[in-house]
C-alpha cells in the first residue's frame, strides 16, 4: 500500500510464505468447490377463495406480477453458481426454473460480473442483475420475509425489476455509510420494454445512507429513481391468465421514484435470540404516452393517450421472538390516477369499456392488503411459512380476496450470504 516495490519484494518473502504455510496446516473447504453451487427450492400450497383471475384495479399487470399458482405448486427452483473469477472479478449466475400451466420455463434471473479490486470505493457490475431500485428488489425471492411481493412491487415493478446493463457504485470514505450509484440498462424489464434507444434506454440512480445507533440498532435509508423514454411495455390487461392473451401495450415514457427505509433491532446486536426488522417503501410511477389494446380475436381494439400517476407503499414488521420462530405483519396500499384523452375504439361499446378491458380503469379504487405470517427456520437453510392475507384490489362490487400460503424454502449446497 505505502510502497509498491517494498510490497512486491516483501510479499513474496513474508506474506505468502505464511499463506502457503496455512494451506499446509489444513485446507478450507470453500475453495474446494469452484464455483459455489446452490439450489433453492421454493414451493408450497396456495389457497384462494376468489377464483376470478387476479387483478389490481388501475394497474395493468406485467412481468411476473401474477399470484402463485393455486394448489400445491413449485413456485421456483433457483440454481445459483458464484465464484471469484480471478483476483479482480466476481461472477454470479442465477437461473430460475418455473412451472407455468404444466410447462417448465427457464429464466435468467441474474448473470453478472462484479469488480472486486477497483480502488477508492468503486464497484462496477455488468450483465443481468436485480436493480437497486427500492430496497427489497435486490433481495432474492427466497430471502423475502413474506411468501409474496408487496403489492407495490407487483403493480409497479412486475414483482422484481431486473434488466441487462451496467451498474457503477461508489461508497464514500465516511463514518456513516453513504453510497451512490447509477445503472444504465437495456430497457427490457417491466415496466420498461422494447429496448428503446437501441437497447440502452433505461437508467436508474440510487443512494443509500445508513448506520448504527448503539450496539442494538441499525438502519438504512435509500432513494432511487428510474427513467426510461420511448418504451413499449407489454401489459397483461384485465384478463391475465385466462384464454389467449390480448395485445395490450403502453408506448411512452416511464419514471419511478422510490424511498425506502429499513430498521433492525437485536438486543446487543445479537440477532440469534431475538430480533425485529421494520421496513417501509414508497414509490411513485408516472407513465406518459399512448396505450393500445387489441383482443386475441381481433374483434375489439382501441387506443388513446394516457397519463398515469400511480403510487404505492407498504410497511412491514417481522419479529423473531424466540430462536427460529418469527411473526410478521404487513400492510400494502396502492393508488392510481389515470387520465385518458383522444381515445378511439372499434368493437367496444364505449371508451370506458376499452379502458376497463385494457386494465387501466382505476374507478377510484385504492387497492390494499393486510398480511400476517409465521415462519419457522430449523436452520438458515430451511424455512416453513404460513401466511394469511386479505386483499381488496379488485373493481368496485367484486369480492375481496383471502389468500393462504403454506410455503417452504430449502437451500441445498453452499448458499451465500445475504445483504442487509
Amino acid at each position: 500500500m505505502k510502497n509498491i516495490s517494498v510490497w512486491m519484494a516483501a510479499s513474496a518473502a513474508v506474506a505468502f510464505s505464511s499463506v502457503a504455510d496455512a494451506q499446509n496446516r489444513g485446507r478450507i473447504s470453500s475453495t474446494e468447490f469452484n464455483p459455489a453451487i446452490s439450489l433453492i427450492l421454493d414451493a408450497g400450497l396456495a389457497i384462494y377463495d376468489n377464483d376470478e383471475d387476479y387483478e389490481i384495479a388501475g394497474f395493468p399487470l406485467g412481468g411476473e406480477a401474477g399470484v402463485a399458482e393455486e394448489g400445491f405448486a413449485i413456485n421456483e427452483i433457483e440454481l445459483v453458481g458464484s465464484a471469484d473469477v480471478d483476483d479482480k472479478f466476481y461472477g454470479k449466475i442465477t437461473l430460475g426454473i418455473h412451472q407455468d400451466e404444466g410447462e417448465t420455463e427457464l429464466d435468467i434471473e441474474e448473470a453478472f460480473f462484479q469488480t472486486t479490486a477497483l480502488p477508492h470505493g468503486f464497484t462496477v457490475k455488468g450483465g443481468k442483475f436485480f436493480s437497486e431500485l427500492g430496497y427489497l428488489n435486490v433481495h432474492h425471492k427466497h430471502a423475502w420475509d413474506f411468501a409474496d411481493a408487496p403489492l407495490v412491487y407487483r403493480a409497479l415493478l412486475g414483482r422484481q425489476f431486473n434488466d441487462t446493463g451496467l451498474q457503477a457504485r461508489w461508497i464514500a470514505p465516511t463514518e456513516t455509510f453513504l453510497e451512490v450509484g447509477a445503472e444504465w440498462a437495456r430497457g427490457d424489464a417491466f415496466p420498461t420494454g422494447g429496448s428503446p434507444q437501441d437497447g440502452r434506454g433505461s437508467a436508474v440512480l440510487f443512494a443509500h445512507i445508513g448506520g448504527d445507533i448503539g450496539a442494538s440498532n441499525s438502519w438504512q435509508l435509500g432513494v432511487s429513481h428510474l427513467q426510461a423514454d420511448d418504451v413499449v411495455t407489454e401489459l397483461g390487461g384485465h384478463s391475465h391468465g385466462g384464454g389467449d392473451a390480448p395485445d395490450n401495450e403502453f408506448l411512452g415514457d416511464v419514471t419511478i421514484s422510490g424511498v425506502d427505509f429499513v430498521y433492525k433491532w437485536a438486543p446487543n446486536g445479537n440477532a440469534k435470540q431475538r430480533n425485529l426488522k421494520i421496513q417501509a417503501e414508497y414509490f411513485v410511477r408516472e407513465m406518459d404516452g399512448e396505450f393500445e389494446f387489441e383482443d386475441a380475436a381481433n374483434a375489439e381494439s382501441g387506443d388513446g393517450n394516457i397519463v398515469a400517476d400511480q403510487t404505492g407503499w407498504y410497511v412491514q414488521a417481522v419479529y423473531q421472538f424466540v430462536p427460529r420462530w418469527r411473526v410478521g405483519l404487513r400492510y400494502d396500499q396502492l393508488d392510481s390516477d389515470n387520465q385518458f384523452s383522444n381515445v378511439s375504439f372499434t368493437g367496444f361499446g364505449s371508451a370506458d369499456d376499452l379502458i376497463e378491458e385494457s386494465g387501466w380503469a382505476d374507478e377510484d379504487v385504492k387497492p390494499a392488503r393486510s398480511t400476517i405470517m409465521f415462519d419457522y427456520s430449523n436452520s438458515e437453510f430451511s424455512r416453513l411459512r404460513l401466511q394469511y392475507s386479505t386483499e381488496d384490489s379488485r373493481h368496485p362490487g367484486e369480492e375481496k380476496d383471502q389468500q393462504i400460503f403454506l410455503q417452504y424454502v430449502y437451500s441445498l449446497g453452499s448458499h451465500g450470504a445475504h445483504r442487509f
Partner: protein
Amino acid sequence: MRSFIKLASVALAGLFSAQSWALNIFACEPEWGSLAKELAPEATIYSATTAYQDPHYIEARPSLVAKARKADMLVCTGAEMEVGWLPVLLRQAGNPRIQADQPGHLMAAEQVERLEVLQKVTRSMGDVHAGGNPHVHLDPHRLLQIAEVLRDRLMVVDAENSHHYRQRFVDFAARWALAIEQWEQQAAPLKGLQYVAYHKNFSYFAEWLGLQRLATLEPKPGVPPSAKHVQKLHNLLEGQSVLAVLTTAAQPTKNAERLARKLNSPAVVLPFSPGAEGAEDLYSLFQISIDRLLAAR
C-alpha cells in the same frame, strides 16, 4: 504567541507521527482487535462484533460496509466462521486492500493447526466447518503464532513502519510468554477436569489446559438446545464429576443453569472475547477465564 507556535508545532508533530503508522484495521472479532492493538497501538481499530454477539450470525450492515471501505487491513477468524456475512461485506466494500489475495486480508484460524477438522461434512451435522473448529484464540500458544503472522502482514501493509511492528512483536512475545507460564502454573489444578459447554467454543482452551469436554448443550453446532435435550444430557451425565457448565457472554444461560442445577455443578459464564465480563484485553481475558474455572472447583 511563542507558546502558541510551540503548541502548534507539538500538535503538528503529533499529527504527523500519529499518521505515520496509523493504519485502519478492521477486526471481525474483538480478540483480533485486541491483538492488533498489541502490535499496532497507533492504529485505528474497529471490531465488527462485540463479545455479546455471536460472530456466526452477523449481518453485513451499512456501518460495517462503511468501516470495511476505509480499512487498510482486515483481521478475521476465517475457517468459514464469518461465511454468513464476510463475503458479502468484502464484495460491497469496494476496497481492494482487504480482498482475499491481499496481505491486508488475514484469516487468523487459517494460520494455525485446527482441531476437529472433519473429513466429511453434511448439513445434517449442524453448523460445522469442514476446516475445523475456528475458535482458536483461547489457546495462547496459537495466539502467539497468529501474532507472528500479523506482524509479518503489518510489515508488508505498512512497510515504512516495519521496525515498529517488529519491536512491538518482540515486546508482546516476551510479555505473552511470561503470562503463559503464570497461567499454566495457576491452571495446573484444572488438568483432567471435565466440563460441559454450550457450543464448541472452548476446545482450544481445554486442549491447552487439559480439560475434558463431556458434552455440548447444543445437540448439533448452531442448533439451540431443547428442554428434552437438556434432560437427555442430564441422564447421560448424572453421577459424573462436572467442573462447570460453560457459556460465553453471547450465549443464553437458561439451559446451562438448568443443567448445572441438575448436575449440582456451577454454571459459569466466561467472557470468551475481550469486552465482556470484565475482560478488557487479551491478558485479562485469559486471567478471568482461569480464575472463574478455579473458583468453580
